């Protein structure tokens, strides 16, 4: 599906490194899973390449639920990237 807009959120160390807490994105054609979205963001280079690198330990949530790389994306989704959690 093309023409799908999603909201991207970044937290904690990621938010600081990227200098961004939130953005709206029109999903490019072919970006239909979390994993592909991550690779797409890494392609922005600089801090993006570093933080989104496959070797980097990163967690992601789709619509506020922890999700794996093969999670499908659709219009209106809220997608969040963040480091492993450290609460409690």
């Amino acid at each position, binding site marked *: 599906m093309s023409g799908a807009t999603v909201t991207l959120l970044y937290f904690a*160390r990621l938010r600081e490194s990227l200098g961004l807490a939130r953005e709206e994105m029109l999903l490019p054609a072919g970006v239909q899973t979390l994993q592909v979205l991550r690779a797409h963001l890494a392609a922005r280079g600089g801090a993006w390449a570093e933080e989104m690198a496959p070797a980097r330990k990163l967690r992601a949530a789709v619509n*506020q*639920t922890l999700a794996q790389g093969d999670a499908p994306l659709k219009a209106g989704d809220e997608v*969040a990237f963040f480091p*492993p*959690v*450290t*609460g*409690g």
Partner: protein
Amino acid sequence: MSVRIQEADFDTAAEIAAMRRGNPKIGAIASFIGVVRDINDGDAVSMMTLEHYPGMTERSIGAIIDQARGRWEVLDALVIHRVGTLKPTDQIVLVVVACSHRGDAFAACEFIMDYLKTQAPFWKKEVTPQGARWVDARASDDEAAGRWRN
């Protein structure tokens, strides 16, 4: 069942009293209080800030409590987690579980804490003499949560 994310401190006794009020089936109350320590990974900690993901935090802790209720006989459960700026000896988190029997209360309380540590979207940034740093997740926390998968 109740989940609260707040900057303000909490009053454990008042929370336990409110939970017990009018429920004579409660025979066992297990609780856990997490406190900011003055040292982490060998460095002195003077302050920390706790960031979270509003919305997902409440949702994920609610899901953790639901899992606990599916495994043990839980009459009531409460999680309060603070966010914002905290200093050593400040309280961070409170988990209270009320059951008829103590085995259920202990297990559910520890289960909730172990899952909260690995699944609830909170992040700590601490200030040490070397400057501010994001706290790294611990493998021991993943192992603690992993124990419950059986």
